[in-house]
C-alpha cells in the first residue's frame, strides 16, 4: 500500500533535518514555490484532498476563499489541538515526522499568501512542541523556512503556540480566540475566518494531517494522490484505533479500506479474543456503530455517511462484548459537559443535564422517563448553538440510546415506583468550566445542584 503520510515515520531520527532531507523532505515545498499561488491551489483542488480535522471540507476550495485587500496580512493556522477523545494521529505525525508537517504548513502558506503561520498545539503536547521547535529551528537555520525559503522570494515565519487544556480550542474560531489570548469562545459565523479570522485578518485553519498530505501531492502530483482512495474520498487516512483492541495505534489506510479489516489487520482484532460489540469510527462526536452495522462500512467519507455516521477525526474507539454501554456513554457525556465552553445556554446547560441524568441512571437512581428526558434535552441542544460541540454532544447520546436501548432500560425502575411529577425531579447538574467544582466535577458521583425548574 502507498504510504502518503507514514513513509518515513519509522525512520530513526526522522525529526532531524539531515535525516528527513535524505528521505526527500521539503522537495514538495521546492516544487510548490515554483508554482504561483493560483496554480498551487488548482493542483491541491485537483488532488481532491479534503480536510482531515473532522468536517472533510475540500482543502483547495477553502484556500480559494482568501481574497485579501492589498497589503492586508493573511494567516495560516495549523490546528494541532487534537482533543477529540480517541484521536492521537496529529500527536504521532508531529512527534515522528515534524518536518512533514512544517513543510505542509509552508506549502499552504504559499498558496494563500500568508507570511505568518501559527502551529497551535494542545498544552498536553508540550514535550512534542519542544521537538517541533527544534526541527523548526533547524529548517530555518538551513534556509528552508523563515526568510527567503529555499532561496526564493517567499518568506514565512512559523510560531508555535501551546494551549492550556480546553477541548474547544480545536474548534477553528475557538482556536483563533485562544491564540488572541482570549477565552476560547467560538465565534458566530458569518463572518467566516477566511474574511475575519485571527486578529480580524483573512485566515485559514487547517488540520495537521491535512497539511501533511501536501508534500506528497506536490512531489507525486495531484493525479497520483487522486488515484488513491475512492472517487470522492481521495488519498489515505490516518486512523487511530484504541479501546478494546489487541494492538492500539495509528495506522495509515487508503480511503475505502474496509473498517473491520483495518481493525483485524492493523490493530490485531479485539483484545483477548473477545467479540466486537461496537465501534465509534470518528471520535466521540460521531454516532456509534454496532458490530453488525460496522461490517459493510469502508473508511471513507461517503461510506461512513451511508452508515449514518462520520469519518470525523479517524479516532476509532472499539468496544468489546463486555463493555457497559450506559457507563461508557456517561463517560462520554461527562466529557462534553466538562468541555462545553459555556457560551451558549443550550449546550452549557444541556450537556450538564445529559451527564447528570446518565449519572443517576448508572448509579441506579434512574427515574421513569429518563431516556425520553435525555433525548428531549439533546433535541433542545441540536441546531441551537454557536459551534459544533453542542450537536456533537448529542450524537453519542442519541446513537447509544437507539442501538443499545435494552441496556439503558434495564437501569430504569419499574414504572409504578414513579412518584408524582415534582418528586421525580432532583437537582440539576454543574460542570467545571463554568460552574464551581474543579476536579470533583470529573468524578462520577452524583453532584447536587439547583432544581431543574427550567426543564
Amino acid at each position, binding site marked *: 500500500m502507498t504510504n502518503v503520510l507514514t513513509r518515513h515515520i519509522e525512520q530513526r531520527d526522522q525529526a532531524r533535518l539531515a535525516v528527513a532531507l535524505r528521505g526527500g523532505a521539503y522537495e514538495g515545498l521546492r516544487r510548490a514555490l515554483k508554482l504561483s499561488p493560483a496554480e498551487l491551489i488548482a493542483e491541491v483542488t485537483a488532488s481532491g484532498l479534503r480536510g482531515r480535522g473532522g468536517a472533510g471540507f475540500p482543502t483547495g476550495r477553502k484556500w480559494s476563499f482568501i481574497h485579501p485587500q492589498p497589503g492586508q496580512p493573511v494567516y495560516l493556522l495549523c490546528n494541532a489541538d*487534537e*482533543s*477529540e*477523545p*480517541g*484521536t*492521537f494521529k*496529529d*500527536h504521532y505525525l508531529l512527534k515522528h515526522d515534524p518536518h512533514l508537517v512544517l513543510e505542509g504548513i509552508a506549502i499552504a502558506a504559499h498558496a494563500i499568501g500568508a507570511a*505568518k503561520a501559527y502551529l497551535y498545539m*494542545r*498544552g*498536553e*503536547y*508540550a*514535550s512534542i512542541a519542544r521537538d517541533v521547535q527544534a526541527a523548526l529551528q533547524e529548517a530555518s537555520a538551513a534556509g528552508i523556512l523563515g526568510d527567503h525559503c529555499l532561496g526564493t522570494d517567499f518568506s514565512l515565519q512559523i*510560531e508555535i*503556540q*501551546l*494551549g*492550556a*487544556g*480546553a*477541548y474547544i480550542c480545536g474548534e477553528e474560531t475557538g482556536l483563533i480566540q*485562544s*491564540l*488572541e*489570548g*482570549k*477565552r*476560547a469562545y467560538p465565534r458566530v459565523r458569518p463572518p467566516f475566518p477566511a474574511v475575519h479570522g485571527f*486578529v480580524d485578518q483573512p485566515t485559514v485553519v487547517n488540520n495537521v494531517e491535512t497539511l501533511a498530505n501536501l508534500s506528497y501531492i506536490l512531489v507525486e502530483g495531484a493525479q497520483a494522490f487522486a488515484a488513491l482512495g475512492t472517487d470522492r474520498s481521495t488519498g489515505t487516512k490516518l486512523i*487511530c*484505533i*484504541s*479501546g*478494546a483492541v489487541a494492538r*492500539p*495505534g*495509528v495506522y495509515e489506510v487508503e480511503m475505502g479500506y474496509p473498517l473491520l479489516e483495518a481493525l483485524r489487520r492493523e490493530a490485531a482484532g479485539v483484545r483477548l479474543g473477545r467479540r466486537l460489540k461496537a465501534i*465509534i469510527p470518528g471520535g466521540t462526536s460521531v454516532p456509534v456503530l454496532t458490530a453488525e452495522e460496522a461490517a459493510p462500512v469502508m473508511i471513507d467519507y461517503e461510506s461512513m455517511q451511508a452508515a449514518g455516521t462520520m469519518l470525523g477525526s479517524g*479516532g476509532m*474507539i*472499539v*468496544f468489546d462484548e463486555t*463493555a457497559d454501554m450506559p457507563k*461508557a456513554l456517561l*463517560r*462520554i457525556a461527562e*466529557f462534553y459537559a*466538562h*468541555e462545553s*465552553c459555556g457560551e451558549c445556554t443550550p449546550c452549557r446547560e444541556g450537556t450538564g443535564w445529559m451527564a447528570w441524568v446518565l449519572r443517576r441512571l448508572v448509579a441506579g437512581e434512574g427515574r421513569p422517563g429518563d431516556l425520553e428526558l435525555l433525548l428531549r434535552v439533546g433535541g433542545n441542544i441540536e441546531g441551537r448553538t454557536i459551534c459544533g460541540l453542542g450537536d456533537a454532544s448529542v450524537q453519542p447520546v442519541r446513537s447509544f440510546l437507539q442501538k443499545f436501548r435494552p441496556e439503558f432500560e434495564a437501569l430504569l425502575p419499574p414504572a409504578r415506583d414513579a412518584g408524582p411529577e415534582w418528586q421525580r425531579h432532583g437537582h440539576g447538574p454543574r460542570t*467545571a*468550566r463554568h460552574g464551581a467544582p*474543579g*476536579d*470533583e466535577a*470529573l*468524578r462520577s458521583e452524583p453532584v447536587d445542584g439547583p432544581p431543574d425548574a427550567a426543564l
Partner: protein
Amino acid sequence: MLSQQALHEIASVQSQEASSQHALLTALRCMQAERLHVGPQEVEFLAGLLDLSPATVEGVARFYDQITKEPVGRHVLTLCRGISCYLCGADAVAEETEQILDVPAGGTTSDGRLTLRLAECIGDCSHAPAALLDDEFVGPFDPQSLHAMKDL
C-alpha cells in the same frame, strides 16, 4: 515574580502581534510553570505586565484546565479518564494511584511534592491508561511505578 527567561519569552510572543493580549496564554503558562498557580497576585502582575484589566486575565485564566487557582505540587501527575482509557481500566488505575499517593484526585501530597489530576482524553489513547508526569507521556500507566518515583 517571573524569571528573566519567562519575561523574555512573553515579550517575544507579545512582539509577534500588535495586541499584547496575544501573549496572555503564554504568560499564563509561564506563570503556572514558575509559581505553580495563577492566584490573585499573579493575576495582578500579569495584568500590569500586559496592560490588561485583572478581570480579563482572571477570566482567561479560569477558562483553562492547566492554569490553576490554587498552587499545585512541584510535579503534576495527570491521569486520563477519557473513553479509550476508561475501556482499558483507567478507573481502577486512578483508584490505586489515589491509594498509593494517599491523596484524592485533585489533591496534592502533604509534602507538596505531587498533585494528582484527572483529565479528559490527553491524546495518547494507544498507551491507555494514558498519563502525563508533568509534560512527559508515561502511559500505559502502572501505579506501582510510583514507588520508584518517590525521589522525584
